[in-house]
């Protein structure tokens, strides 16, 4: 049982492109106890301290409770004399007021230090800037300095602790409240309409980091998944270069492209360099550079694309993309067109 579970997890992790090392703590790729970025690391250090203190309090009070419940249970005759009545003790009560006050002061100071170090961190001039826009139920990523727009899979460069290149995220929302939570990189911060927020990360290891929306945002809150690819600097630069190129230019217009451009698809989706310039849905210019569709809900395969176009509710019931009433054949043609958007 144990063994097969482990193997199952291992298989999934390999599929997801996560190495074993990432998943060792509690076998979870989203544990808060395996930080790889400064904000997550300082939270982790604080959490250990807080848990040591609360653990010690627990041990003491728990033991006292067990001792007194066992020791002072009624023995002997049913109607013996009443025990001695004690009405209070100023010394004792003073003691268990003052000691907690001291503990609270220590915990407060420790927390205040970490709050300041994370929230008041200085943004270096060469920090990567990404604007994250939460939508029901997907993520839009814009790199304003680099001229790149993409969706659902965030790419950021690894940050060498000796020469940090942190990424600063500006968090916006197009509709309801969302929350950006990738536990191994940082704590969560909400995306609230009309209330811009920000956070930062500086991951020290490359790899894929998972997370998901952590503020209830509507029907498909559950499958509003986060995927953060931390690339080496060279890979990141290459990715930016590739994403900056215009869409795949074909000399002939395929049947699928015709259908795509003649139905309402283009009201919501953009393909740079074509008539499609909608902004309500994910930008599809480089769709095939992504490993997943539907905000991480499904793998980006031709079969899933066809199913998704034919009826999105099959993969993600309640998603905002409507079924366009296309036949399976037409859906397949649109999928074939989308498959050329590399």
């Amino acid at each position, binding site marked *: 049982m144990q063994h097969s579970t482990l193997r199952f997890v291992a298989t999934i992790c390999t599929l997801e492109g996560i190495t074993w090392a990432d998943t060792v703590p509690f076998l979870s790729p989203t544990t808060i106890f395996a930080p790889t970025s400064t904000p997550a690391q300082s939270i982790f250090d604080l959490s250990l301290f807080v848990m040591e*203190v609360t653990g010690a309090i627990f041990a003491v009070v728990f033991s006292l409770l067990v001792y007194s419940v066992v020791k002072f249970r009624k023995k002997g005759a049913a109607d013996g004399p009443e025990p001695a009545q*004690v009405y209070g003790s100023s010394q004792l009560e003073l003691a268990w007021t003052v000691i*907690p006050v001291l503990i609270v002061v220590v915990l407060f100071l420790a927390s205040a230090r970490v709050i300041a170090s994370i929230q008041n961190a200085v943004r270096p001039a060469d920090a990567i800037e990404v604007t994250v826009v939460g939508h029901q139920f997907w993520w839009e990523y814009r790199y304003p300095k680099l001229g790149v727009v993409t969706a659902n899979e965030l790419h950021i460069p690894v940050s060498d602790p000796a020469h940090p290149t942190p990424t600063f995220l500006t968090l916006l929302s197009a509709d309801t*409240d969302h929350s950006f939570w990738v*536990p191994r990189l940082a704590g969560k911060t909400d995306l609230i*309409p009309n209330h811009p927020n920000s956070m930062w990360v500086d991951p020290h290891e490359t790899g894929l980091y998972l997370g998901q929306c*952590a503020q209830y945002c509507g029907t498909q809150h559950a499958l509003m998944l986060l995927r953060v690819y931390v690339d080496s600097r060279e890979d990141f630069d290459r990715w930016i270069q590739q994403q900056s190129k215009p869409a795949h230019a074909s000399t002939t217009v395929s049947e699928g492209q015709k259908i795509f451009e003649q139905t309402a698809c283009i009201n919501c989706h953009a393909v740079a360099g074509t008539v499609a310039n909608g902004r309500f849905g994910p930008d599809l210019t480089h769709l095939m550079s992504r490993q997943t569709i539907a905000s991480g809900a499904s793998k980006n395969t031709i079969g899933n694309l066809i199913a998704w176009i034919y009826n999105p509710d099959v993969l993600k019931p309640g998603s905002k993309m409507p079924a366009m009433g296309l036949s399976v054949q037409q859906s397949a043609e649109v999928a074939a067109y989308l498959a050329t958007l590399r």
Partner: protein
Amino acid sequence: MPAESIALPLTDTARPFTSRLHQWVTTVDHKRLGLLYIGFALLFLVLGGVEATIMRIQLIRPLNNFVSPQVFNRMFTMHGTTMIFFVAMPLVFGFANYLVPLMIGARDMAFPRLNAFSFWMTAFGGLLLYFSFVGGDGLYGGGGAPDVGWFAYAPLTAQTFSPGHSTDFWTLSLLVSGIGSIGTAINIITTIFCMRCKGMVLGKMPLLAWLNLTMAGLVVLAVSPLTAAQLMLLVDRYMGGHFFDTQAGGSAVMWMHFFWVFGHPEVYVLVIPAFAFASEIIPVFSRKAIFGYPIMVAATVCIGFISMSVWAHHMFTVGMSSNANTFFVLSTMAIAVPTGIKIFNWLATIWGGQITFKTPMLFCIGFLFQFLIAGLTGIMLGAAPFDWQLTASYFVVAHFHYVIVGAILFTAFAAFYYWFPKMSGRMYNETLGKWHFWLFIIGFHLTFDFMHVPGLLGMPRRIYTYEPGRGWDIWNVIVTIGTFFQAAAVLIFLGNLIWSYFRGKVAGSDPWDAWTLEWSTTSPPPEYNFATIPEVKSRRPLWDLKHPEDPDWQYE
């Protein structure tokens, strides 16, 4: 007429059913209204429990298809709203209604008709909420309960994102029941200030009265902003207002402030009466006076005040300034001090006593352990940076269920068993009571201990499904199994109440050899409570009566 009404309810089965029903519907007697509140709460406890069970079945394995996302979202919205507003609040009000006049030697609440009005407002609020299952979509279609979450963050509640009427049912039911809550709170405050019997100065009131006084004060201060916010939401939805309409410059964060300025004191509205039950029951079953009465009162009032200044610790992730976050860390942690005092004082009450493990005491001991843990996870959540990881995850869900179930429901069960003989005139079945306790505590720990873990592993709350491979699967299986233990225990509890009501041994007026005034009158008490209004000299008038050689008033 009076002679007839005294004979409650054991012998009044002879009356025709419609006559008895009429009497219950038109009653202004604090005891009957208390029982109505409690019965109403039990009904909704079953409904909320069914909703919880549906959610737990859906989450028992990844990518489960037991219910659709739409249904799941309705379930957690209805579960939260039901349990807080239509189970916990009516339970608290029911016991306060029943016990406060009896314990302060009064014949009724200060405003009996306001009391009836308040109960029926709450009852109709609850019915309105559940009517949404058939009326929620109005003309749009088949029906649907609200699905915006129990704290209903803007702008998800705007017409744009919540068309139909499901959100209106949520808003209106809380508006209506909120008016009932405020009415009852005013009634409790007035009763305690104006109706105490001779000799009962504030410093000689039973702790239960002090704690309910604090609770009622908090209700007035906390429910009012919620009621105001519901009105603002209605203005937004139907009159073109922009309070929370972010697309027209409104503020989603303002809703959060309104909600949590209610929501956090609300936790103390519920837990302070739980403290009250523990503070009455633990001394009786330890055979000792409560340890440090004055500091217990001071700690309670202190908790009441501090709890008004901690609300934004529910909002550490919404982008407040570092200064604001730091302030709310301090105020949140400060509340641990008076709470800690209480735990130590209960411990000192037990210390040197002679504990008998009747069912009420078992539930109180469970409460002490669980409230300790709930307080400590609360400190973890109070450290804002740690909260950035923990909040909105299953860790925080586990934490507040530790408070609401592990502390509040446990002491409420204790209160049920402790005062059942007084309310019904009959003893409950002790064996069934012990079965209830052990099954429930096993189920509770299976569910809520293990629920902390997926939160630490990144599982957010309010997701109807999850992918395999996150390391969450096994924990969710254990959590769901615990649910069934709890459900079985609650069924035994309800069975025990019904069986004992008809078949239990006759209890007599003072089955626990207790010390407060409610045990000096018959079980159940007559409509007028006391034939002659009692006069007290100490906090434990019945102790004085039973121990004339060593009365309390010599020491107080």
